[in-house]
């Protein structure tokens, strides 16, 4: 019953997040403006009919189905709990667990790859505090060896963000964890664009150190508001331009309207097409950011890092805003000092368990163990008397990030018709001693711990230790 209730809440929240604002409409959509460029070229590999039997299945919808089966075919989930599958390849997963493929909503893989070099450090366009025109996907190095490490940890989808030096850091991109020479080949098909914003210490430190604006938190806020005013103005001009074009096609006198990449991103947010992913630590700053969203009529989809989300957990739940958090990082800067181990659990339980909690990594090590991070966050909640089941906690690293990335209709839970992104774990994924045994992406076995040749190595890994000796 509970899971049905929760689904309803999700549907409501998804509607809120797609809220179309009353701003004037563009005559052309962005994809027309950019001539359909930069789109995903990812096509899943044809996948066989596979029946995985006798597994404990954490569905991501809030259920744990013990000793059950899942059938996948043609890249999709075909059925759950049905053991009759003629001609299917059978995997006996007795004693093992299945979860949806893990989704990390906060990664810098590809834009801050390993090894970390000046030549490939491409995550922060820290030359101006307002850079909504840059796109993380244009920095991604597709041969980052960290991708493979994450795959071994069960991560099937991840969201790559620009860094947090700027007030507006640029667009993020959602990628499938598959190997491709091109970033277009990794892009999650039709995933909405996102915009990285950053509160607090980072922008004011980076620009304050250069004796330029912003150097304070109030400077940060003025910077956001100025940019949104520009975006509103741009949209008005665009509408006027459209109107005059309609009146008179042959009007040669009017000045041609010049596209503005910064404004295209910001107006995309104001039209509800681009989702705000907002790096923000302190409770009062999150409240201010939600007021800015109110002033300009857009929505904050998720606060990231959100060390103090527990202080405003009710406010977040009321506004349908997710918080993406670590289980236990703290103290690296002043705004990260008030960490509580129960942060994730408290956000989850706020407003009669209607909070949207996400566990994220922001780390190439952490992304490999998001199941353990969720386990730490859950057990902290249990210690505080917040009785959160594993079936619910798994949502922190599956359906909740999928929702905040606008892809929950296709991934994040094990439901019929969804992409067959799933992980077979060799035990309870909430245990430190458990490892991902097999990882399927769109029904294709992308990693198998029992076989060295089950996964595609990045170019970097090939022969890098010595000729003929791969890194992994």
């Amino acid at each position, binding site marked *: 019953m509970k899971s049905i209730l929760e689904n309803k809440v999700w549907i409501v929240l998804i509607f809120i997040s797609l809220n179309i604002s009353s701003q004037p409409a563009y005559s052309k959509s962005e994809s027309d403006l950019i001539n359909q460029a930069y789109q995903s070229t990812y096509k899943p590999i044809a996948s066989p009919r596979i029946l995985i039997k006798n597994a404990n299945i954490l569905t991501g919808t809030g259920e744990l189905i013990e000793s059950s089966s899942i059938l996948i075919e043609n890249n999709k989930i075909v059925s759950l709990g049905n053991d009759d599958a003629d001609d299917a390849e059978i995997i006996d997963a007795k004693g093992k667990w299945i979860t949806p493929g893990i989704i990390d909503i906060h990664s810098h893989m590809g834009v801050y790859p390993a090894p970390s070099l000046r030549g490939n450090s491409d995550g922060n366009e820290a030359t101006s505090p307002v850079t909504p025109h840059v796109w993380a996907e244009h920095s991604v190095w597709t041969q980052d060896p960290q991708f493979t490490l994450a795959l071994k940890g069960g991560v099937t989808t991840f969201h790559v963000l620009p860094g947090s030096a700027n007030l507006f850091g640029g667009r993020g991109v959602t990628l499938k964890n598959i190997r491709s020479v091109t970033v277009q080949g990794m892009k999650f098909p039709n995933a909405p664009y996102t915009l990285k914003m950053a509160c607090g210490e980072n922008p004011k*430190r980076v620009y304050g150190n250069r004796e330029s604006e912003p150097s304070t938190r109030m400077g940060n806020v003025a910077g956001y508001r100025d940019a949104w005013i520009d975006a509103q103005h741009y949209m008005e001009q665009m509408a006027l331009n459209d109107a005059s074009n309609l009146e008179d096609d042959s009007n040669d006198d009017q000045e041609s309207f010049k596209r503005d990449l910064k404004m295209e991103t910001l107006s995309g947010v104001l039209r509800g097409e681009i989702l705000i992913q907002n790096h923000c630590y302190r409770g009062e700053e999150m409240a201010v950011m939600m007021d800015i969203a109110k002033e300009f009529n857009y929505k904050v989809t998720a606060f990231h890092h959100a060390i103090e989300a527990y202080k405003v957990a009710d406010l977040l739940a009321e506004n349908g805003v997710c918080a993406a958090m670590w289980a236990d990082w703290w103290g*690296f*800067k002043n705004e990260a000092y008030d960490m509580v181990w*129960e942060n994730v659990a408290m956000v989850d339980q706020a407003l009669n368990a209607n909070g949207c909690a996400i566990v994220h990594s922001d780390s190439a090590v952490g992304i490999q163990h998001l199941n353990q991070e969720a386990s730490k966050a859950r057990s902290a909640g249990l210690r*505080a008397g917040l009785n959160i089941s594993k079936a619910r906690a798994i949502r922190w690293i599956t359906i909740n990030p999928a929702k905040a990335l606008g892809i929950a209709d296709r991934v994040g839970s094990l439901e019929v018709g969804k992409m067959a992104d799933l992980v077979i774990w060799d035990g309870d994924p*909430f245990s430190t*001693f458990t490892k991902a045994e097999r990882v399927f992406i769109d029904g294709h076995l992308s990693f198998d711990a029992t076989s060295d040749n089950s996964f595609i190595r990045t170019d970097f890994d090939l022969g890098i230790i010595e000729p003929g000796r791969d*890194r992994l």
Partner: protein
Amino acid sequence: MKILKTYLFFLLCTPLYAENQEIILIKNATIMTAMEAGILKDTDLLINNGLIAEVGQNLEYNGAFVIDASNHFITPGLIAPQSMIGIQEIELETETRDDSSHYFSSGFSIIDAFNPSSALIPYNRTGGITTAIVSPSSGNHIFSGMASAFKLDGKLTEEAIGENVAMIMSFGGSEDSRASKMLMLKDSIIKAKNYHKSRSQIMRGGYFDFGNYTPRDLEAILRLIGREIPLIIRVNRARDMLRMIRFSNENKIEIIFSGAKEAWRIADKIAIESIPVILDPMDNIPSSFDSIAARMDNAVILNNAGVKLLITSQVTHNSYLSRQGAGNAVAYGLPEHEALKALTINVATVFGLSESIGSIEVGKDADILIWNGHPLEVSSFTKEIYIDGKNIDTLTRSQMLRDRYLKRLGLD
């Protein structure tokens, strides 16, 4: 009839602390000794006068405060082999940091900076760390200074239990060639030896070219050469470790590798040379061209070769996450017993503290943790903490913040 003050300790919502109890008898625990004895089931442990007085079955003691620890694991207090607990409060706030010196190099000692009131102490203690080897950070100089050992009971009057127990240096890729660093290192040894020879003349006012060193720095290097303290080398590349082995043999210096991401490539050599290795088993990122061969089973391969492991966490604020690292090493094949030793007795042994801490043995300090589950599981946490036989409150600032907001959110 014997009068036993028995408490159904773990069934009560509000813990009853055995505060100021001199004699505590913990009954029916699963004791992970971190010694040859291994894991002892249904075993009792008697704490008397701050020490482990007795370990065995069916112990009784008149007037002891009795704790029933059925279904609970007990381990020795964990020891962080490399941490800045007490000398760094907020990483980006320089004034809260005391982990490096602009003036001294090898002679830098962090002892006078240690802050027993740091918020990091209750957090890490609750996470299981009862002693930290507090170590300076890597600065500009090849030598960072010396580490000292502190217990984490938070007493304002705390004194180090091991003063300047090891010197720390870094070796690897940077602005200056690693070859140049090796020359600097060799020169520092020569300089210290020359200083030693002319010490009496210098005392009488004779000239000595100290270069970039102070007398204090050179005295510290003399302690290295005299094998009074080991040299911890923060290094990752396999080839660099081989060069450092050669250097240490030429100069008869005891060394310890730290980081050591590529150590598995020369595991046998490290084992033959009896060099302990401090590592984070979870750090498998090839983050530079010094650590291209990083891999998840580094710890396992080293252990199989016979290398003594000390498990650390990369981040000072969460030094206690060494426990998660140890658990992950177990997932990749490190025996559980070895993983626990890498968090306790191996650290104590390497830093000369094993007479008093690091294992559950009669006569040692009663630095003991009672866990609510398997100690290497991330889902487990400490339930009771004893340092020198005293029950330490598990309360942290984190918990107080939590409780304030649980109440505010109506979740209490």
